[in-house]
Structures are given as structure tokens and as C-alpha cells.
């Protein structure tokens, strides 16, 4: 069954005269699947991820997005989050003055509250956090540091997947989580993402390198080109893109047009 159905999605930068970035995206992601979206820098991958999370910098000018059968675009960002959508940011934000521990507790409890569940007490929270820290091989001192402040690029990405593991989303959008990671960190992070795979969930991985897909095996690979999904295939497409680059897709699309 489809978890996410994007139909002819158009979005532009929400300023007067702002340019159109998404120019008719079509994408269906079923429960239990992992999708990879590849494409050159600037093709609109992050914009798609941000629009799905409800970023107000972009204005949706056309198309529909169904999540679990309901209109995702009607929901605020926080509602999307409490209903199971998660975005691992390409550029995680630093929040000086807020400890990672408080930040995560606020997130977990906001989601519980939205579901009418009681807040987690300190002990239960700690138990979950410890387990996920072990999964991502993170030092406990992370929890007492301000969110992402002074973190290296790799630490920030790992922190995103750590949060994802704690929050346990239904639809995980990962935006270039692999960039800035060495091979060991890549394995750890992939391991964290794979632990979320399950029959009721789905992962959409944005990347422009094939190597992540060695560890998080995708069911479907898409190529994004100038604000559209230009081509889709199985995981062999990723290997082909790695070997041949993106220009041939561009030509293929031009010929079809």
C-alpha cells in the first residue's frame, strides 16, 4: 500500500517573483520500501525533502501529496512530524544553549502528547536514548552538549540518524546523510537507518553518491533532473549513474521531449 503519493508537485521560492524549483514531481513510495533519489547538485532534491516537511520558504503552486491517504500539504510541519514524517537534514542546524538531551526529550514528548500519550519519565527516556546511542556508537557526552554546536560535519549527520532512531518515524527522509562521513561512520549510520526498515515504514534517501546504497539497499532508484523525476529503475540504475554520470539521462529526456 502506498505510504506517500506525490502527484505533479510544483513548488517555487516563496518570495515575490521567486523561481519555480519543483516542476511536476511524481513519486509513489509503498510501505516497506526504500527509495533513493539521485541527481546533480541543484536539481531540486533538498527542495523536495523540505517541501515534504512543510518548509515555508517554498510555496506549493500545484499538485498533491498524500501521506497515508491524507493530504500532507494541509498539515503544519509539527503535525507532519507527530504523524511520523522525519527529515534528516542535509545541513543540521546548531542551537546554542539547548542541550541535545533536552531537545530530544522535547521532541519525543511533543510527539507523545499529540498522540494523547503521557510524557516519558526521565528513566524511560534515558533507557531509549542509551540503546540508540549504542546503536550509533555515540559517546554519552553528546547529550550534554548544545545541539550540533561545535560538532564536526560527520557528528552532525550521525546526530540526525540518532534522533531518527529515537523518534522512530514512519517515513524517513534522509537528505545527503552520507556526505561528510568516512567509511566507518557511513557503516554505522547505514546500520542505524536499516534498523528502521520494516513492513509499515519507508525510507527516502537523497544522495548523489552510489556508495551509501551499498549499505542501504534501495528497492527503487530515481533520478531527479531540473525539478522532476526524470527516470526510475532498480538499484542497478545507481551503479549505472556512478559509472556514466548524469548527462546521458539528460539526453534521454531531451530526446523523449
Amino acid at each position, binding site marked *: 500500500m502506498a505510504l506517500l503519493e506525490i502527484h505533479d508537485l510544483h513548488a517555487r521560492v516563496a518570495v515575490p517573483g521567486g523561481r519555480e524549483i519543483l516542476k511536476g514531481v511524481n513519486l509513489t513510495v509503498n510501505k516497506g520500501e526504500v527509495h533513493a533519489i539521485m541527481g546533480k547538485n541543484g536539481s531540486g532534491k533538498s527542495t523536495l525533502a523540505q517541501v515534504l*516537511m*512543510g*518548509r*515555508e520558504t517554498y510555496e506549493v503552486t500545484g499538485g498533491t501529496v498524500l501521506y497515508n491517504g491524507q493530504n500532507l500539504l494541509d498539515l*503544519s*510541519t*509539527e503535525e*507532519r*512530524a*507527530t504523524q511520523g514524517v*522525519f*527529515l534528516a*537534514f542535509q545541513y*543540521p*542546524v546548531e*542551537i*546554542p*544553549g*539547548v*542541550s541535545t538531551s*533536552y*531537545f530530544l526529550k*522535547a*521532541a519525543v514528548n*511533543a*510527539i507523545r502528547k*499529540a498522540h494523547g500519550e503521557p510524557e516519558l519519565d526521565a528513566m524511560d527516556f534515558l533507557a531509549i536514548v542509551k540503546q540508540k546511542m549504542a546503536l550509533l556508537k555515540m559517546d554519552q557526552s553528546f547529550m*550534554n*552538549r*548544545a545541539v550540533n*554546536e*561545535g560538532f564536526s560535519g560527520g557528528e552532525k549527520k550521525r546526530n540526525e540518524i540518532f*534522533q531518527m532512531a529515537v*523518534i522512530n518515524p514512519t517515513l524517513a527522509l534522509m537528505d545527503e546523510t552520507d556526505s561528510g562521513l568516512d567509511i566507518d561512520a557511513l557503516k554505522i549510520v547505514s546500520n542505524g537507518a536499516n534498523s528502521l526498515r520494516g513492513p509499515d515504514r519507508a525510507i527516502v534517501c537523497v544522495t548523489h553518491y552510489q556508495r551509501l546504497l551499498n549499505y542501504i539497499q534501495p528497492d527503487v532508484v530515481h533520478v531527479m533532473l531540473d525539478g522532476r523525476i526524470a527516470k526510475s529503475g532498480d538499484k542497478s540504475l545507481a551503479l549505472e549513474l556512478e559509472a556514466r554520470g548524469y548527462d546521458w539521462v539528460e539526453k534521454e529526456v531531451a530526446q523523449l521531449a
Partner: protein
Amino acid sequence: MTQLLDDKNIHLANFTLFARHATPTLSWVEKLRRSAIARFDLVGFPDAKDEEWRFTNTAPIAQTPFVLAEHDDPAAAASLAADFTFANQAAAEIVFVNGRFSQQLSRVSPLPAGITVTSLATALQNTPALLEQHLARYARIETDPFVALNTGFIRDGAFVHLARNAVVRHPIHLLFLSIPSAEPAIAHPRVLVVAEDNSQATIVESYAGKKGAGPFSNTVFNNAVTEIVAADNVHLDHCKLEQESPDAFHIAHMHVTLGRDCSFVSHAASIGGKLVRNDLVVVLNGQHTDATVNGLVVLRDSQHVANHTILRHEKPHCSSHELYKHVLDNRSTCVFKGKIFVQKDAQKTDSKQTTKSLLLSDEATMNAMPALEIYADDVKCTHGSTTGPVDEDMIFYLRSRGVPREAARHLLTYAFAADITRRIKVEPVRRRLEDFMAAQHGLPQDLRITDLGSHDQAAL
């Protein structure tokens, strides 16, 4: 013009009364007061044409017919003192009610050897020579009319003496309580700290007040002057907390002179008052001295706070770091003017000034004015200033994790201020500020940020 004369006359008349009733005192003090009042008479209150007072309108002060503050409500004083006391977390606590020393509420012993904390009046009796050497030598009456006015009424206040090698670990708390009275009243608190070689202490000045009611609705105007003089290798941590009633006037000058190899840390928080002005001058007057000067201002309604700081680098190889943060809501207004002055001699000065302001309302106004005046050629001096609403990227990040927009705004405002509070080593001050922020933003009070210290320099 006649108006101005009248304004001044209120205080000149107060002085005549004061001089008649003040117990006979040392002739040099007498002379000091008279020359200070003469100075005030000469210059009067500053007006809007005065560059140093361009953004702070003192007319409400000049036009109020103040009488000299008296203290006649011991119950109110005791209850306010109970709210602000450090209890056994202080090495000594010396309490003033409407500017007058309260023996009853103070505790000045036991203290480690070499540490003296007394009222200024006692110090003038016990160690007149020491006081004559230092009192009013640093905060000069020529600098500012309010300093002159304070000096004219020198009588009460706090004296802290740190003898050579004396060290006290717990904070010395100077607590100034403002109890509302039937008439508008003015107090002139005076603090003198003399730190000899190799001494070490933490000194906290708290200015506390609550709004009065009924006929006792007039808040005391504190016109304070603090002088701190440190010899060599002195380590001082100073905090100033201003949490007076929302209708209070507060004008304060603090002058700090540091010798060689000193470290001086200052945290100044203004979270109360209606019209507040703090002038802070730090003179780095010996080599290898370091000054850290931080501030936090949190305002709402139509509160006004102005912080004017001057860091004077007189000698080589010194460093200074300054970080002032402001949170402005509603129609509040705030001024930060930070001057870094590097003397020709002061080569290898390393100085960094940062000011950040958070505007929670479109109607709030921030005036941030960094000013570098550098006469040496081999120095590293930087300054930066940002003013704006809560960062949208941070809000989106929190919302993407399920935290609603309003809650995210509150949390980020708290965090903005926590960047200063987490640096404050004096626990009762830090806790009070954190609780104040948490209460204002409907956040739990256990919101401690524990990464104290490690990012201090990075964040600067």
C-alpha cells in the same frame, strides 16, 4: 531652562538637608561631597543633546521631586531579603534597605583571614586612611552628573577589602533592596572594593525591588556608584543583578581598575526596572591582564535599559572579551554602546566584542553601537553585532521534530539567554536568571544547560 534649574534644585535642597543631618564626619569626605555637589550644580542633568545620553531620556528622573530615601517598613524589607538572600551560599551578605545599611539583615562574619566586608560608614571610622586613598579616585565626578550627584551624598554603602594573598571561595553578596514609599525617593548606594596583590574573590551586587501598592507606590531611584581597584595578580569574579520593580529608575556607574596579571570577569544582568542605565569602565592597567565582560538584558512592555561599556587597554599583552545579549519584547528599548580603547602602549592587545539582540516584537528597538578607538599598531581587535527575530532555521528544525512553533520560539529565546547564564559561576544568580527565563516562557525549571565552559570562547 528654568525647568532645568528647578530639577537641579530638588537635589541641591536635599543636599542642604543632608549636610545638616549627616553625622559629623571626616573633613576630606566633607570636602569631597561639597565639590561633587558643586560639580552637579554646574552641569545639571544631561539632556538629549548630550551625545552620551542621546538614546536615554533622563527627563522622567530630572522632573521627579525626589526626597532622600528613608527606611520605615522592616517587614517588607525582611520579606524581600528572604527572597534574594544567598543564605549559606554567601561568604558574607551585606544588605541595604533604600540605600541604608541594615545591621539586622546583614551577616559579615565569619570570613577568611584578610577579608573585610563592612558598611562604608563603619569603614570610614575604622580605616579612614585606606578609604581616603581610594574613595572617589576612580569614578570621577567630572565624568558624569550622576556620579557627581552620588558622590555628593556619600554616606552609606559597602566596603570590601581583600588583603594581600587573601582568598575567599564563596561569593560576597551586596544586596540593595528597594522598598516602595509614600513619596518618590532617591538613594545613592556606594561600593568600594580594594583588592591587594594575589587576592581572589567573587562579588555580587543585587538590586532588588517589588512594585508597591496604595499610598506606598513610589519605587526608590537607585543612583549607584561602584569602584573596584585591583593590584597585581588579582582574580575577581563580579556579578550584577538588577531585578527591581517595573517602575524603578536605576542609574549605575561601575569603574574597575586592574593591575598586572589580573583576571576580571563581569556578568551584568538587567531584567527589571523602567529606566535603567549601566556604565561600566574597565581599565587594564598592567600587562598580561584579562577581562571578560558579559551582559544580559531581558525586557518587556516599555522598559528601557542602556549599557555603556568602555574597555581601556593601557598596557601591552592584555586581552578582553565582551559578549552582551539582549532580549526585547513589546515596545521595550535598549541601548548597547561598547567602546574598546587601545592606548599607544598597549601592543599585542587581543580584544573581541560581540553583541547579539533578539527582537520578539516588531515594536521593540535596539541601538547597538560598537566603537573601536585604537592607537597601537600590533593588536587584534574585532567586533560584531547582530539584531533580529528568532532564527527561522532553528524554529523549523524544532518543528520538524514535532515541537510546535510557539513552544519552539519560547525554547529558543530561553536558549539565547542561556548562552550568557550558563557562563555565570555564581549558582544563586545563574539559577535566578534561568528560573526567570523559564517562567517567562512557560518552560520547566529543570532546563539546565550543562555544557558549561567548553564553548565559551568558541561562542565569542
